[in-house]
């Protein structure tokens, strides 16, 4: 289909920031050489190695077969699992609440004038970039230093970088929606925010929900790790047990973490299938 395929209305000027094909080859070459060089830069031989590492590894693996299933440990494990799950869920929910408005503004799709659009998009994209440039663990340290050991620390530390990631992805998706349905909406009299509600958001919904669910799963792992700073949860319990060399307890907690992640993965997979069906 040549020119005949276009309905009346401004033709699709698909704005792609992709570099042209011939330059993409060069880019690939550069990235591959950077990767190769990074391998040589790692000091493979050096470092301090545990003297009787083999024996400890043997004990750790031995404990794997006999995780601690006593009532006391299980109670601790269950409480810690619940706490990690709650931190992750609250953190990612807050991240979504922040990411939706920020992502819309970062995409610049609401601004009609190109000047306003560029300024809004640049400012919000920079803001989102700043949020995700700092790892959640670093955020957690900063917040612990600022407010102490409160559950808010875990939630906020997770929410801010995740809002940065989700907002950025949403902005990119909103920019990349097929143009023809949007043109048709405008021709029917829709204003830009109506085009957003009736065109852009529905078209990115399935992908965005899928991605947010994936991030939720990541959030659970992050929340577990983050609790190492002393916030409670599975990571904290793993650390305590490791310090006391109680490897059988370690495996109980690790098992809980794996089970939690698998459950969330199964559930989000089911939701995704329903959305795309």
């Amino acid at each position: 289909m040549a020119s005949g395929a276009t309905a009346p209305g401004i033709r699709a000027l698909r704005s792609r920031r992709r570099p042209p094909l011939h330059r993409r080859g060069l880019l690939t070459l550069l990235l591959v050489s950077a990767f190769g060089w990074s391998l040589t830069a790692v000091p493979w031989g050096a470092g301090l190695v545990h003297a009787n590492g083999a024996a400890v590894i043997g004990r750790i693996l031995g404990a794997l077969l006999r995780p601690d299933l006593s009532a006391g440990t299980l109670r601790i494990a269950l409480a810690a699992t619940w706490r990690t799950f709650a931190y992750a869920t609250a953190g990612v929910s807050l991240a979504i609440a922040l990411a939706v408005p920020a992502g819309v503004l970062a995409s610049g799709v609401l601004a009609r004038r190109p000047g306003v659009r560029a300024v809004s998009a640049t400012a919000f994209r920079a803001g989102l970039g700043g949020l995700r440039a700092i790892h959640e663990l670093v955020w957690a340290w900063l917040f612990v230093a600022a407010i102490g050991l409160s559950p808010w620390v875990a939630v906020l530390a997770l929410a801010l970088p995740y809002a940065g990631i989700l907002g950025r992805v949403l902005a990119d998706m909103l920019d990349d929606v097929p143009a023809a349905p949007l043109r048709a909406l405008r021709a029917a009299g829709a204003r830009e925010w109506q085009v957003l509600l009736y065109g852009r958001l529905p078209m990115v919904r399935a992908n965005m929900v899928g991605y947010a669910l994936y991030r939720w799963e990541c959030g659970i792992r992050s929340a577990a790790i983050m609790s190492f700073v002393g916030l409670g949860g599975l990571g904290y319990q793993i650390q305590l047990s490791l310090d006391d060399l109680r490897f059988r307890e370690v495996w109980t907690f690790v098992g809980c973490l794996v089970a939690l992640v698998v459950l969330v993965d199964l559930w989000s997979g089911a939701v995704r299938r329903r959305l795309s069906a």
Partner: protein
Amino acid sequence: MFALEGVAKRYGPLEALAPLTLTIAPGERVALMGPSGGGKTTLLNLLAAAFPPDAGRLSIAGRPAEGLRPGRELARLVGIMPQGFDLVPSLAVVHNVLAGRLGEWGFARSLASLVVPRERELARTALARVGIPEKLYERTERLSGGEQQRVALARLLLQRPRAILADEPVSAVDPARAEALLALLVGIVAEEGTTLVASMHGVPLALRHFSRVVALRRGRLVFDRPSAAVTPEEIEALYALEDAGTRGVA
């Protein structure tokens, strides 16, 4: 409905539409015909005020086209019948139909309607008129191409523009469905008194359903007369291949 006075459009050195003067009265059904690259889409875009002409004066419903702001004002005057696949695929049919009301709706109503559809009866009636009442809550992407075009037509029924512009409205469906869809479109515009301007590749189809033919070739007007007065020789000359035979006819 449309008045053109020396309206022209060029793309760089290419004269997509040579200065054209013609008027289209309210309620007329005009078929734009001619070989590929003739300027049909360009003319439709100009009539839709999608871009301004490079020269000449164009008025829509008696008002200068350059003074019409995109949005509600323009949507009340001209509506566009897309070739297909211009609906939002992941939305339910009802929302794609109700999108024809967005020009009239404010923020609260637009948002609320996505949760519980407003003015549902309008959508239901429109879908019944285009022959697919049972698809109201179906996801739009599950519909066939022909059904999607009916949804687009239902949206236009809610938008109620004074003129409908259609670029090859039936080129994406098989001949039997093309006939039915065109009959439906023409029936609706006749009932509503809407002006219809459509680019058409199927000659017999165009002559049967339209009252007037405007023929363009290489951006120039070849002829403009009632369908009944168009002769087979004229049609043949209109589509005849040039010396190099570069222009194909669909």
